[in-house]
């Protein structure tokens, strides 16, 4: 069944993922086609009745030439000439197919409410494009005022967007950042689910007292996200209360529910922000019928600039860094016998670390990744540089930068989760301890790639395999690793 779009409420992240990641088709329903058709008709009447009104790209030229007015004849002439650029950006890699599909989905979201005033034919044709392959868009050099640089590639591949006889906008909107952020919002939830399981495993490995995640803390801390973190950790660690440390665990364990709570807050914010943005795509110009706005009007806007998405993504990136910093502490503490009260360096009783049957020295590895993460997670500010040789286009949209950086940070975070997961699993094994029941399947998954170290081997390869599988599970949502943690209280 293709995804059917009728109302703005159909523009959910779940539907975005179905179309962008799972490759499902999309079709406009009757209600949507009626809205689109009515808007297109109303816009044609509007332009005809107001030939002298400034309507960007309709009665004016584009970009630096926006102040130059054009008439109907000139508009048709310029349309025949077409878009002047076939593609300007470049990079060693192209964006993944799912990213481009998410962008098309976001543009269809703009069409759905009628603000772009495209014809139903154009809307349907673009929707059908998702039945086939997407154009290649380089993964670099995509930042400009608005999101015109990636748009050039879509305009080239989908000429119906350019050939539309008369419309307000064929995609001059924040489609790139909204589409990409929507996918990121979903993967962030899964990544956080996986992270909570890994941290719960670490908590178990060091036998941290359960009072650090006592449900009685929920009303005292008073924060709904910290409450969820406490519930999730408690669920993962359900089981007999045996062999806990007789005194408090290091700070890095005790503050876990608070740092996870903040990550859950950031995740929820990104999800809400992405979905709201998808449901209220604004273009420049934007056409409002009286059903859509406060009156019938076509207005120039800054709708191509979404300022909330970079902020939400930056918040998520920051949480990955902070959680990675905690994980690094855990990895070190687990290897430090006097602190963990576990065998020093996680060497089995009677063995020697030189024999290589330990994860010792693996604790050095995350530092490199965390350092990279910190650099990539600085906030995505408005670029101070003048954007181009145009008085008009003076501020870059920074959503793509935030998306790209968050993704890089997130994949680095997976590596750290792989190391902590492997080390914690090894810590249980050397003491012949079982994982808590709720984490048993999860630990089994970890051990497929990163079994406890019982003989000398290249442990880095194990960690790399596990990190890749974690990333894959997160991207595709088809693994026990990212299964939702149940039993919310």
């Amino acid at each position, binding site marked *: 069944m293709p995804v059917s779009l009728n109302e703005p409420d159909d523009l959910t992240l779940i539907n975005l993922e179905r179309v962008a990641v799972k490759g499902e088709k999309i079709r406009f329903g009757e209600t949507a086609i009626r809205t689109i058709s009515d808007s297109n008709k109303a816009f044609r009447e509007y332009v005809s009745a107001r030939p002298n009104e400034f309507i960007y790209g309709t009665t004016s030229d584009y970009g630096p030439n926006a102040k130059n007015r054009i008439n109907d004849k000139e508009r048709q002439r310029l349309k025949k000439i077409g878009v002047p650029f076939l593609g300007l950006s470049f990079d060693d890699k192209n964006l993944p197919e799912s990213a481009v599909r998410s962008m098309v989905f976001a543009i269809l979201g703009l069409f759905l409410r009628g603000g772009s005033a495209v014809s139903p034919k154009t809307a349907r044709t673009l929707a059908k494009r998702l039945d086939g392959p997407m154009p290649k868009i380089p993964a670099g050099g995509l930042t400009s005022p608005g999101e015109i640089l990636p748009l050039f590639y879509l305009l080239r591949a989908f000429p119906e967007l350019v050939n539309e006889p008369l419309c307000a906008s064929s995609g001059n909107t924040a489609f790139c950042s909204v589409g990409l952020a929507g996918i990121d919002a979903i993967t962030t939830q899964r990544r956080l689910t996986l992270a909570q399981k890994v941290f719960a495993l670490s908590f178990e490995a060091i036998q941290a007292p359960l009072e650090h995640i006592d449900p009685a803390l929920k009303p005292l801390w008073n924060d709904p996200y910290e409450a969820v973190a406490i519930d999730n950790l408690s669920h993962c660690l359900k089981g007999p209360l045996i062999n806990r440390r007789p005194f408090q665990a290091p700070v*890095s364990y005790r503050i876990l529910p*608070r740092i996870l709570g903040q990550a859950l807050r950031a995740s929820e914010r990104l999800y809400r922000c992405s979905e709201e943005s998808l449901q209220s795509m604004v273009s420049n110009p934007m056409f409002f019928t009286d059903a859509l706005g406060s009156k019938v009007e076509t207005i120039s806007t800054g709708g191509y600039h979404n*300022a*909330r998405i970079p902020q939400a993504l930056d918040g998520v990136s920051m949480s990955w860094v*902070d959680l990675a910093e905690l994980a690094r502490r855990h990895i070190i503490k687990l290897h430090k016998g006097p602190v963990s009260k576990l065998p020093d360096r996680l060497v089995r009783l009677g063995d020697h670390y030189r024999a290589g049957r330990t994860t010792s020295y693996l604790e050095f590895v995350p530092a490199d990744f965390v350092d990279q993460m910190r650099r990539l997670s600085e906030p995505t500010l408005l670029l101070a540089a003048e954007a181009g040789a145009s008085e008009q286009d*003076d501020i870059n949209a920074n959503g793509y930068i935030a998306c790209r950086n968050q993704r890089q940070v997130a994949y680095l975070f997976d590596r750290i989760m792989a190391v902590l997961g492997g080390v914690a699993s090894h810590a249980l094994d050397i003491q012949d301890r079982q994982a808590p029941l709720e984490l048993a399947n999860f630990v089994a998954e970890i051990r497929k790639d990163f079994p406890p170290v019982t003989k000398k081997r290249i442990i880095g390869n194990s960690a790399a395999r596990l990190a890749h599988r974690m990333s894959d599970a997160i991207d595709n949502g088809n693994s026990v690793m990212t299964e939702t943690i149940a039993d919310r209280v």
Partner: protein
Amino acid sequence: MTVVLDSRKDFTLENLRRVSVTGESVLISPGAKKAIKRSRQSFMAYLDSDRTQFIYGTTSEAGQGASKRINPEQQRQLARSRSRVRPGGGFGLEYVPERVVRMIIFARLANYIEGNAKARPIEAQRIASMLDRPLPKLPLSGQVGAGEILPLAHVMNFLPEGETEEGEWMARINGSPVSSALLCDVALTARGHLSLATQIFALSVDAYAAPLTPYSASLVRYARNPHEKRALRNLRWWFKTSSHHGRIAHQAPVSWRILPAVLGAVEEAVAIAEETASISLSSVTDNPVYILPTQSEPLGRAISTGGYHNAQAAPAIDDINARFADLCTLADRHTMKLHSADHLPANLADPKGDGWGTGLLSFLQVGYGEEARHAARRSFLPPSEGGGIAGQNDVASPSMFAYQKHTRSRFCLEASLALLASSASQAFWVTNRKPSARLVPILECVRDYVPPLTSTVGRDMGNELHALQQYFQALSLSN
């Protein structure tokens, strides 16, 4: 007036404002005193029921010595020996504003008011009385450590003298009231800065003669996000009686059209700061914290927690700092464009003057913007284990670090807005125009500090602009 504290519900931003800004005192209600007393009695019964159980800092040593248990006599001796909090060790060039020190003292009481601090009522009263005495000076630097012991040592060293009993001394210096206070101060003042920024950018819209269509009511109706709606409404308010005539016939540069989007993101950052500040202020964050008796646990219990680490404050403050930097960038762009627009006199120079105009203002924006962007760097968990010598205190709280940057960030925003406001004022002057009616008062204020410039002779622009920045600061803080 006095703020009466009866329960955690009284730890509101409004009460905090009364205590910190208006300077009101605090009174612990009779009901709260009874609750605190009951809690103390049950805690002591809990302690006496088994003095070998682990209660951090009561039956064990503190910090690195957490694993060492102490006997009952040592427990009493430890409590007696800590009746005075040792002075803090941090030092630096700048200090936390006095109003924030009052906020810390106020926030400190949240642990006590319902008995979770396991202390006697006298302890809560001693803390409350600090608001009526000379306040300690708290350096901004040197306060980033595990928990908030470093800054709290500076503050609680000023606690009135008095003996302490078991469980009480740790409650004085544990928990996260400092983060709560810092976040609350940012939340209370950022709203004022946002209002000011909205007003000055509205002035800039008129000064550039930019079309009002990017701020149409249609966008308010269309938007799904409340912060974007609110930003648009607030911006539109200034143009209530404005005319669309006399504005440029084509769209203004991007930096004017994206104002609603950028202000919407600031609105969201401020709203999150307000929300998390409210949560933090009324939360109980002690370690160990005393869980009050229930039917199943008639003596209650004391548990070790990570409450002393407020994970919400630094990200929320960082977001505000980042958005302030963005506003500086927009102000920079507007200032430059006002001085170089085709439809305005070059450099906004008065044709009857010496011809220099106010182009200098655009130069000045660069430094404040760069400084603001520098102050917007993230306050991650510090990589250093610092006090984690024996493995215990291995993660520091970065809240004070975020706040330290915020003090710079808000100064830069005030400075940047002063430069933009002066440029806008000059633009009206040289074109003999007036802004929308609601913007006339702020324009007049701007001109009180920085009059329109015809000649640079006899003018000290630095002093004038500084005075305007200070006026903007006062305006933001009083909002």
